[in-house]
């Protein structure tokens, strides 16, 4: 049903703990902000390519993560060449692509469940502020479970609309959908209450 972009593998990058990868990613993205010369951006690019080779996720998976950027890169290059000069344009654009590529590598090499568990652990220090990590993971699984349910509600409403003869009104679709989502939510809330969540 719903799967992330995870590419199974046994490389060093895959086996590194999710929390560590997230920490490295945060540091690397900050460091990239300070890479202002073509030399440093080149070094950063070499490191990112080396990590992709090390992780062996395959070219198709890597391209799948970067593809949404392709038009933006073109537009960015054109604008920056116009307002600045070519080296600046290349440096700025490459920095952006590298940050996205690095973040995508974490996504490609880490299971969704591991990332969620790392997030839950990361929220522990916020317990003092009233954030309950157990409730956060309950929320995440409830939301995941609700995606196919809501998609199903949308499908039923669409079929009903077709049966009535191809109505054009989007509102006649969206209002019942929102009401359906609320009914589903409130039924789910009662089920949680019945299981003693509020006690």
């Amino acid at each position, binding site marked *: 049903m719903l799967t992330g972009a995870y590419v199974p593998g046994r490389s060093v990058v895959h086996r590194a703990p999710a929390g560590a990868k997230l920490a490295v990613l945060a540091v690397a993205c900050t460091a990239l902000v300070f890479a202002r010369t073509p030399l440093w951006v080149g070094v950063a690019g070499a490191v990112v390519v080396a990590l992709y080779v090390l992780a062996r996720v395959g070219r198709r998976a890597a391209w799948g993560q970067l593809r949404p950027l392709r038009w933006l890169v073109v537009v960015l290059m054109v604008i920056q060449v116009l307002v600045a000069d070519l080296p600046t344009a290349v440096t700025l654009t490459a920095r952006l692509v590298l940050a996205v590529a690095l973040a995508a590598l974490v996504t490609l090499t880490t299971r969704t469940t591991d990332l969620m568990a790392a997030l839950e652990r990361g929220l522990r220090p916020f317990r003092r502020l009233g954030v309950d990590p157990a409730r956060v993971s309950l929320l995440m699984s409830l939301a995941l479970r609700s995606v196919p349910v809501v998609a199903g509600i949308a499908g039923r409403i669409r079929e009903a609309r077709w049966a009535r003869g191809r109505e054009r009104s989007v509102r006649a679709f969206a209002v019942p*959908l929102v009401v359906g989502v609320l009914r589903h939510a409130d039924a789910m809330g009662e089920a949680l209450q019945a299981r003693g969540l509020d006690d």
Partner: protein
Amino acid sequence: MAGRSRLPAGDLARIAAFAAFIAVLGLPGSFHLFGNAVPVTLQSMGPLLAGAILGSRRGALSVLLFLGLVAAGLPLLAGGRGGLGVFAGPSVGYLIGFVVSAFLVGLIVERSGRRPGVHWVLVACLAGSAATLAIGIPVQSAVTGVPLAETFQLSLAFVPGDAAKAVFAALVASGAQRAYPDAAPAARLDRAEDRADRA
């Protein structure tokens, strides 16, 4: 995930269901304008509807939850995008803007009584859309290195569509609130207080 008090089960369920609803709005083929001719994703309506129906705090939490699932690697953003790469890319400001806009919409709708008039919901949704742009554009400018004025000009193309989506979201939210009285944040609050009084 509560502030000082723990969120009751009913609120948890609504937050989770709306996070799923925002995800479904971005699924391909879930929403089509004008028959099937123009596929338009209406995902950016999600935060507006979440705020208008769940209220400020719960609306913002449902958007945060949706973003949490995206960060965990699920391809739930419009166009099947997902993963940490999105948060390193130029659209991160719009994603943060979604959270703020849900909060703002909720705040305005909450203040307008248990049966909010269409005009208030409309004002709220337009303000929410504006907030998304007000945060998204400067962040996009900072991430891409394109000067603010140029980024602003590029984003002008999206303003008519966003305004139309805000109007549409307001119509759908008021329609849902008429069909399901519990869909207004203030009405639900009143009812919860009634229940607490009786107990």
